[in-house]
């Protein structure tokens, strides 16, 4: 569905390279594609416009003219600006206040507040050795208070005993008193989900804040949010003076444009990201990673460096030619396995490739286990030349022989052949999709896997 920015920019870059310099018109053409990429990544329109204007200022002029590959330079400028806008890495929670430090957690329905509260509670307790008390002020959602209590139990973080029928502000006060009395360092307040346009509930949130004077007010937001992210963030910021943002579901394959939108309209740092449902699935925020993700590409600069050092040009070129001409045989697969291994395993490769999420998925679909790359190379190495050119020859007896030769087993060989078949059919499909785009635009001329 979404083309990576590098793929989008491919044709333009080719043209730029030949000329070696960027005119204002060139920059504008390139930035038009950047704009679309940002919008497809769910960065909100006003934020996109503002961002593009700023990048344009950077891109037209000396920096680019001097660079060897102007096309990549534009992407690098875009990327750097994006990192800068997303803000500094891993700003921790501010706990420098008189105990108990109150951390108030707010957000839309279902964004991940209760889960994040428990994750943060556990993190502060285990990592920072803080005594943490958690309390749920959610008297609306069925079983919300039970949910926090259960999570607290799992995490080993105490929760305020539930008193049926108590109002949120009253619970907040009771929690604050209990935390003070019992000498807790941190009080985490989980609140009910609320729409930013729900006046009553926004009043309630403000009243809770007024009653407890939080040091941190964290907006928990879904990283899969679309254009609405700006409205939500702005409304919460206006009413509550947020101190930070927690982005959840970063374990998904969303492009995460909401991060940029929210950061831009609130000026609040993104302090933490949720990366799963488990209690320890919380991490500091890394702007570089998110920037690459928003652009749907790896860091072009490191990609070029890393690729140049490890990819054998000849191999890549041969594969490219193969792909364009037709057949994809087991020799080609062996070449791919070799390249993959050289690139430093799957994580190393996928982090750098354009459209990494999509490729990751295809890798998953193709059932490729990277731990056994070497074994697979050995299997192919034990085949005869004819077998490598024509996998159909591989009957039971031949497989038996190859298993012995490579020190592997027939099921392993079958798995490899299945994988090969899937890859081959993907290659065929991809060829059919047309010659444009992706393949040619990778700086080193060939993919590890098709899109």
């Amino acid at each position, binding site marked *: 569905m979404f083309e990576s920015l590098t793929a989008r920019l491919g044709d333009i870059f080719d043209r730029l390279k030949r000329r070696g310099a960027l005119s204002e018109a060139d920059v504008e053409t390139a930035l038009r594609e950047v704009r679309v990429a940002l919008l497809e*990544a769910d960065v909100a329109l006003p934020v996109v416009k503002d961002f593009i204007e700023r990048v344009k200022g950077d891109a037209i002029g000396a920096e680019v003219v001097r660079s060897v590959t102007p096309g990549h330079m534009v992407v690098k400028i875009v990327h750097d600006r994006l990192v800068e806008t997303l803000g500094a890495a891993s700003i921790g929670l501010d706990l420098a206040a008189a105990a108990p430090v109150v951390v108030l957690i707010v957000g839309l*329905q*279902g964004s*991940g507040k209760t889960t994040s509260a428990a994750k943060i509670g556990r993190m502060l307790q285990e990592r920072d050795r803080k005594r943490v008390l958690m309390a749920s002020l959610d008297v609306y*959602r069925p079983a919300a208070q039970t949910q926090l209590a259960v999570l607290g139990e799992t995490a080993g973080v105490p929760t305020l005993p539930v008193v049926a029928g108590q109002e949120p502000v009253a619970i907040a006060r009771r929690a604050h008193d209990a935390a003070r009395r019992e000498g807790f360092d941190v009080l985490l307040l989980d609140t009910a989900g609320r*729409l930013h346009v729900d006046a009553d509930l926004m009043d309630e949130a403000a009243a809770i804040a007024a009653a407890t004077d939080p040091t941190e007010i964290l907006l928990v937001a879904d990283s899969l949010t679309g254009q609405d992210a700006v409205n939500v963030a702005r409304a919460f910021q206006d009413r509550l003076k947020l101190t930070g943002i927690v982005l959840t579901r970063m374990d998904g394959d969303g492009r995460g444009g909401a991060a940029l939108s929210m950061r831009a309209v609130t000026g609040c740092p993104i302090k933490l990201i949720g990366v799963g*449902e488990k209690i320890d699935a919380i991490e500091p925020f890394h702007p570089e990673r998110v920037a690459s993700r928003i652009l749907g590409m790896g860091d072009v600069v490191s990609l070029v460096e890393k690729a140049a050092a490890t990819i054998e040009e000849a191999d890549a070129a041969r594969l490219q030619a193969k792909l364009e001409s037709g057949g994809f045989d087991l020799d080609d697969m062996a070449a791919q396995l070799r390249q993959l291994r050289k690139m430093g395993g799957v994580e190393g490769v996928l982090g750098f490739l354009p459209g990494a999420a999509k490729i990751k998925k295809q890798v998953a679909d193709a059932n490729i286990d990277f731990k056994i790359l070497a074994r697979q190379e050995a299997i192919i190495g034990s085949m005869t030349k004819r077998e490598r050119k024509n996998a159909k020859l591989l009957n039971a007896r031949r497989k038996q022989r190859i298993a012995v030769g490579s020190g592997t087993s027939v099921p392993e060989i079958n798995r490899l052949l299945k994988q090969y078949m899937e890859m081959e059919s993907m290659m065929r499909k991809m060829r059919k999709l047309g010659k444009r785009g992706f393949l040619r635009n990778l700086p080193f001329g060939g993919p590890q896997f098709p899109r």
Partner: protein
Amino acid sequence: MAAAAVASRGLLSRLKAGLARTSDRLSGGITRIFRGRRVDPATIAELEELLIGADLGVATAARLAASLAREKIDRDVTVDDVRAALARDIAAILAPLARPLPIDPARKPTVILVVGVNGTGKTTTIGKLAKRLKDDGLVVHLAAGDTFRAAAIDQLKIWGERAGCPVLAREQGSDPAGLAYDALVQAKAAGADVLLIDTAGRLHNRTELMAELQKVLRVLRKLDPEAPHVRLLVLDATTGQNAHQQVETFRGMTEINGLVVTKLDGTAKGGVLVALAERFGLPVHFIGVGEAIEDLRPFEAQAFADALVGLDRSEAGGNP
């Protein structure tokens, strides 16, 4: 429907308020763009941006704007003309999706499996739907198939009480497929009309969790090869373009054949649905417009499209 009659006033005003908010920005934008101007390339470009801002996505926005351009270029048009034309085009795309939940009284029960990513509103939608179907005179059973998330079972039990429907539940951590199987056995034995099965939220890119859902499908089919008759994906209206991946993967791996869009009472526009309609054509059975039990409405293409572009037919005094 009885429930609708009781709740109608509060419900309708809530719905209207919700959908109106959904479209405030878009409609305000349309007014700004076209007031006192002609439809020309510049205004069309602005319109396209506005549609993008409503989550329709770059491609769909471009197509809609282009179609409007063809029709109205260089003509003086009123803001309402533009709105009406847009609403018409969007409604035409959405119209095929507005289909009722296929509940066949001959099947006892019609099994509805509810799936989706985390926190979209699956459990709440089940509660609302159970109430609605029960008010229609159907016997509805619920199965607490989210055995993973803390207190998910208690949450569904409370919804079951509210709707007055029995809930089959096991302890947290038990096998969801086994539970679904037993729930179907019980529902069959009880002669229930509908069995609604809740599932744990899961991101579509988690292959092993998707496989868990596939197992639920397989196990149910041992009892009834047609079951689950409805595989309902619950989408959150605030979701942006990732909704494409959600629908694509859930459709591929769990054969979803219907959608519910929730949280349309916020400012999110749910505009991605227009693009999803073009791409997948899956029916949308209901929309969620709040957290209360009556906040579920059948999906209506024209109303949704009107609301999206800020066209208020009652104020305009009938059909434009």
